[in-house]
């Protein structure tokens, strides 16, 4: 499978604070990988770097053979990388449908359209005229996912999609994931809920204090390996 994304010794900083140290990672076409790690391990920083919100050296992030580490976020979006941000971050001034339409702003061709998103999450069609902030947390997460899909991305990154949601809602969202990834999309799932993340991915990376502490195939990984990589101690 051709490589979609590779991180090459990625360093990332916020001013003087270095959040990532030499992170190496690869992602093949159609692959779903899970990124796990404790709070502050650098997961969100990594996604912000890939999506262009944090500037890096160009060659540290390569997308389909093209160095993109120094590009602006809107340029990266047009290349086909979408992010479902942590905490949903919908636009409060926009209705549900307007949030989705804004996601389609990049105008890439592909299978996803307003209708298709409404098929995936029918409740959103009922609520499409409402302010996005009037929805429940789970419905807001559906809007955030739909908004990312509307861009018809090649690579979609999910940041903590289960955070703050009720278990039954998390289940319904994860149930929808195969339908999304089945469209040939490559995905990166950042998740606190390790079991959930492992259940939908083929490989897993664990970050610890800004470094990759584990890289494994999901089917091979053991509980002890994860504990060690996650906390840095032997359980």
């Amino acid at each position, binding site marked *: 499978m051709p490589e979609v994304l590779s991180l090459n010794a990625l360093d990332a900083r916020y001013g003087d604070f270095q959040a990532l140290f030499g992170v190496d990672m690869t992602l093949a076409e159609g692959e779903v990988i899970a990124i796990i790690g404790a709070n502050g391990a650098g997961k969100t920083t990594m996604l912000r770097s890939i999506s*262009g919100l944090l500037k890096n050296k160009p060659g540290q992030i390569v997308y389909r053979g093209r160095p993109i580490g120094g590009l*602006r976020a*809107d340029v990266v979006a047009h290349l086909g990388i979408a992010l479902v941000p942590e905490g949903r971050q919908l*636009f409060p*001034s926009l209705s549900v449908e*307007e949030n989705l*339409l*804004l996601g389609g702003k990049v105008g890439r061709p592909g299978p996803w359209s307003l209708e298709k998103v409404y098929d995936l999450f029918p409740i959103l069609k009922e609520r499409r005229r409402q302010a996005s902030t*009037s929805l429940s947390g789970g419905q807001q997460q559906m809007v955030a996912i739909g908004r990312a899909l509307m*861009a018809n991305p090649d690579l979609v990154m999910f940041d903590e999609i289960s955070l703050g949601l009720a278990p039954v809602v998390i289940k319904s969202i994860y149930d929808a994931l195969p339908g999304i990834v089945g469209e040939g999309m490559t995905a990166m799932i950042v998740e606190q809920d390790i079991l959930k993340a492992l259940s939908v991915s083929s490989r897993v990376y664990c970050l610890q204090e800004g470094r990759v502490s584990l890289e494994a195939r999901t089917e091979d990984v053991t509980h002890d390996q994860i504990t060690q990589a996650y906390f840095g101690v032997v359980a």
Partner: protein
Amino acid sequence: MIEWVGAIVQGTLLGGLYALFAAGLSLIFGVMRLVNIAHGDLIVLAAYLGLSTTLMLGVHPFVALIVVMPLMAAIGYALQRGVLNRTLGPDILPPLLVTFGLSVILQNALLEGFTADPQKLNGGAIETASLAVGGLAVGVLPLLTFAIAVAVIAGLQWVFYATALGRGFRAVSDNQDIAQIMGLNKAHVFGLAMALALAVTAIAGILLGMRTSFDPAIGGGRLIFGFEAVIIGGLGNLWGTLAGGVILGVAQTLGAKIDPGYQVLAGHIAFLVVLAVRPNGLFPRVEH
């Protein structure tokens, strides 16, 4: 009695002009949280561009808008991309200082180019025409100004809430980072917002120039009236801005009725009263 009614009508119509001063200010603040100290001077610049166009082409000031509106929009886009975008950030001081500097530069450039002599745009017969309405003589130009203000605000409202451009404005205003991730280049969106604001400013400048004489130093006063209209109406609400303009205009004409020296003072007092009673303005934007 009829004189007081007349003053209220005049004030209401004057409020349309103030709303036009304020609309651009309100739009820019709404989209990018930029307080543009040079806004009044940009209105005066538009009046001078109107003057030059009418003199050069021998056309009516309203026809000059065909030149002045795109010109002001282009100036706005270039100004935003070239200068103002660099000042935007977590610190609110740089845009204030830079637009203050811009105000000084504009005033002095206009002084160099046009001298300090008061100028006026010649609107012809429309300036003195009036309609008799129930014993009152209502000027056609003020009436037209008010109608234009309503149309401009309805148009801006439509752009904001019914077009993809407006969706982009609101998205960038809500969350710049996420808007950028959705493929919106905020530098460009801000440029478009400033272009739109200065196109409205062009209309305000032309109407100002037809109504009264102007010179390079009057920008500051127009800025204050615009600010007061925005704040009275409530930030982020364009119809509120129109209401704010009307309240300010009525207060001023009623003040002038009591004593001509009280005109500006009465406006400021009305502003302070509103601020004291409703610090967020009369119609602050309802948060969804």
